[in-house]
């Protein structure tokens, strides 16, 4: 699903944010990406989302060399990836329902079909009863779950999450991780960046360890 071949990333003239990264992720896998703040977790995810180009090496996702994409193809590529952010990135001027419907609106899905899928996604994260609420009225845990609903509403084959539990207490964090495991169980490839080692060790999935831009560990699921 994901292949990194000798990938390096350098921002401007500074030292490398990522250096000689090599790994493969199979279809349907679930794995964590860990390391201290500044280790390069977000940079790695941004390469997969094609928000940045590698300075060196190749990134392949679902068989596509991301370097080969024409600029106009990138949006269509991104539609196949669901992304969850630490700060959830919800739009505060519209309802929960409209937020979750956004990816479908972008893809031009028919309203009726769209409503059906939005409700299914909201149901999955247990927040169907809040569909008319505004994001401002939600707790941070609920917001994060809405962010997840938005990421999975178009059934992406790949789900990325960058510190999805960063602001949450352990109980809520565990709930969020369980959600990711649910999606993984139905075949979605899931990659979660997190520095919450306690949580990660408990969950027993493959872990990629980054330190100062280098891949220093790749532990298979215990």
């Amino acid at each position, binding site marked *: 699903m994901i292949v990194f071949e000798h990938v390096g990333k350098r921002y401007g003239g500074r030292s490398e944010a990522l250096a000689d990264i090599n790994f493969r992720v199979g279809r349907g896998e679930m794995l964590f990406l860990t390391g201290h703040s500044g280790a390069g977790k977000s940079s790695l995810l941004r390469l997969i989302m094609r928000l940045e180009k590698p300075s060196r090496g190749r990134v392949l996702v679902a068989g596509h060399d991301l370097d080969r994409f024409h600029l106009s193809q990138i949006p269509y590529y991104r539609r*196949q990836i669901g992304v969850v952010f630490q700060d959830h*990135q919800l739009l505060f001027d519209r309802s929960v329902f409209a937020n979750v419907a956004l990816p479908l609106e*972008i*893809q031009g899905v028919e309203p009726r079909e769209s409503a059906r899928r939005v409700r299914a996604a909201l149901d999955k994260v247990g927040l169907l009863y809040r569909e008319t609420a505004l994001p401002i009225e939600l707790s941070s845990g609920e917001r994060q779950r809405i962010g997840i609903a938005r990421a999975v509403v178009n059934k992406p084959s790949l789900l990325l999450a960058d510190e999805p539990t960063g602001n949450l207490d352990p109980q809520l964090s565990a709930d969020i991780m369980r959600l990711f495991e649910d999606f993984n169980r139905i075949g979605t490839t899931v990659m979660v960046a997190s520095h919450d080692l306690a949580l990660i060790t408990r969950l027993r999935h493959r872990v990629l360890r980054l330190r100062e831009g280098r891949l220093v560990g790749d532990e298979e699921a215990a």
Partner: protein
Amino acid sequence: MTRRTTSPESQRPARRGARASQVGLESRTRAWLRHHRAMWLDSAQRLAKRPLSSLLTMLAIAIALVLPSGLWLALDSARLLDAELDESATVTVYLDTRLDERAAMEVAARLRDQTPVAGARLVTAAEGLAEFQEGVGLEDALASLEDNPLPAAVVVTPADTDPDSVRVLASNLEAVDGVDEARVDLAWLERLRRLAELGQRLALALAGLFGLGVLLVVGNTIRLAVESRRQEIEVVTLIGATHAFVRRPFLYSGAWYGLGGGVLAIVLLVLGGHWLSAPVTALAESYGAHFTLPRLGLGGSVLLCFCSTLLGWLGAWLAVGRHLADIKPR
């Protein structure tokens, strides 16, 4: 294989299973129209939500449009006046005072036969005196004269009203036997023409300048709108919105601003026309011309609205294009 032989769809990353068959051309077109309709409404609602600032922007556009279109209208009416003046471009040929009426008629006939002459009307000495008396109101003084001091005259209408050819015609006519003098006063006509030409260029320059002004006004407004929706743009770009999708609401806003500005400009032109029409008509009458200020008319109004809408759209397009490049999702 060249690029052209592969369809754009096949260049895109393949979609999975069921969705690929669903996304046919027809449903894509329907989705496209749906988004256009949604953005058309959404942008109008956004403008309506802040009526005062929207109105001010439209007013700024209207003011920029009023000046060149007002001048254009004025020139259009000057062209009408010009046509009327062309008919009045005549050469007055004064005949030798020693000629009697018979001889005068012969000369008039000869003048009529000159090539570039459209018509020649003889004004005998007696008729000339009568016209003069009527015009000046000196019946008594002139009646006391024993001899008629006025020569007979022939008013010649040139076939070609171009100032240069009229001048050539006049000197030819002067060479005809029995003609004393051919007089043509073209200076003011020429001056008027030059003025009209100047006005035309001025209108064009103003139209260009103020058109640019409209672009800037809309561009600046849209720039602020883009800035205020920055997060939204970043998010939709992250989840796969195309540039066209992101640009669309702003283009509609720009078009709305332009259209609103165009309508306001028409209102201003109509009001201004009413306000000016009475003095202008009176002024024209004092010169013996009948002239009313021209109206914009339906065609002109539609054209003005079309142009201003297009300008608004273009201004938005330029602004969004420039600022989207700056906005890159974090």
